[in-house]
């Protein structure tokens, strides 16, 4: 199990235990983290699973900030997209992510 922390727009921390291989979106939905709507169920087709990755991880794990092409396209339908924006359904949980913090945006849409 890998511990992932989602911080909701009110600043509340949701610590969840994620299984390796699942996506960060699935970990959030299974644990009922508010604000991860994931309308399309992980199809990279809705941009309602948008998260901001803790910038402190930039050095440790730069891949975590690399968006794939479909994801970059889909982010056109998200709001307040920043450099550390990702769609959480596009990131697989690995042991390396232990303790990762993700900020949930104010609104998915």
């Amino acid at each position, binding site marked *: 199990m890998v511990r992932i922390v989602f911080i909701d727009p009110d600043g509340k921390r949701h610590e969840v235990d994620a299984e390796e291989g699942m996506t960060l979106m699935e970990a959030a*939905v299974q644990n009922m983290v508010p604000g991860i709507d994931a309308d399309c169920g992980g199809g990279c087709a809705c941009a*309602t699973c948008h998260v901001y990755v803790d910038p402190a991880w930039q050095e440790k794990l730069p891949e975590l900030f690399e968006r794939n092409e479909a994801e970059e396209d889909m982010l*056109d339908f998200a709001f307040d997209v920043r450099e550390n924006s990702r769609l959480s359904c596009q990131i697989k949980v690995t042991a390396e992510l232990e303790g990762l913090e993700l900020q949930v945006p104010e609104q998915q*849409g």
Partner: protein
Amino acid sequence: MAQVSAQAETIHAQALVIGAGPVGLFAVFELGMVGISAHVIDILPHAGGQCVELYPDKPIFDIPAQPRISGAELAERLLQQIAPFEPTFHFNESAQVLERIPQEEGGGFIVSTASGKRFRTPVVVVAAGSGAIVPKRPPLKRLEEFEEKSVFYAVRDPEQFRGRRIVVAGGGDSALDWAIELAPHAERLTLLHRRQEFRAAPASVERMRQMVEAGQMDFRLGQICGLVGENGVLQAVQARHQGETFEIPADACLLFFGLAGRLGALAQWGFEMQGGQIAVNTENFETSIPGVFAIGDVCTYPGKLKLILSGFHEAALMAQKAARYVFPGRHVSFEHSTSSTILAKKLHQG
């Protein structure tokens, strides 16, 4: 005038299906097979749910015996398949309120829609997917003040934008199509998008760039972050790009950020929910309110997969239990479609 809608004629139905997505449509078939004729409502102007609204041209590969079928085609075939059961469709209607009728007054439910239509029915089948598919709204302060006055999510009457300063925000096909269409009539039209690339038809992107080149339209890189104005009258759109905030003078703003599902009023109907979905039992897909069923993407149970295939299965089991409410006391026997007398009769009539 609320009085009028409250007293509006009540439509009597054997079953009311809420949502005309693939699962709601197939529910009409399965209900028909047990002798129930259904009314179907959808907030959209047409059937097909996500398949038509979100991915009409994308091929689907996991519909049994259909190696490849587009979203729009799937909806079309389902409509053909259920036509013999003559469902009554009510489009542009959103289900708002569920009332339970006490047993001594005959039991069942009244479902009312936003426009005031009322349905009296012993069986309600919620097949609402992820809810009403509505335009995404950006988290902007005082947005409501401007909505439908100077900020819009769709163009109903292009004339209303003639001679005005317009900002079109977004980078998909809708944003580009409307920017191209409205620019010649606008005093000034600015297309606002977060990056140089567009996720839209290449021909539209090309056309837009030509128009920008020719000075017929402006293009600004940025993301909308605020609205300036008073009492719904817009003066400018605020945007941000790489840490820098700027204002674009505007009388009207069109926002195209795609669609999202909103369960809305349905979530308050009182059934047991689980993580935003309606909890059901997997024997008959009934909710915690007897007589109200939930199938397709809107329902959840251990192991639930949001697949069209799963929704079809759920519809079949739902119909068996629904028949017990519609025909109390009558034994409903299971029939194959190959030998169903009900279906044979319907097909011969058509």
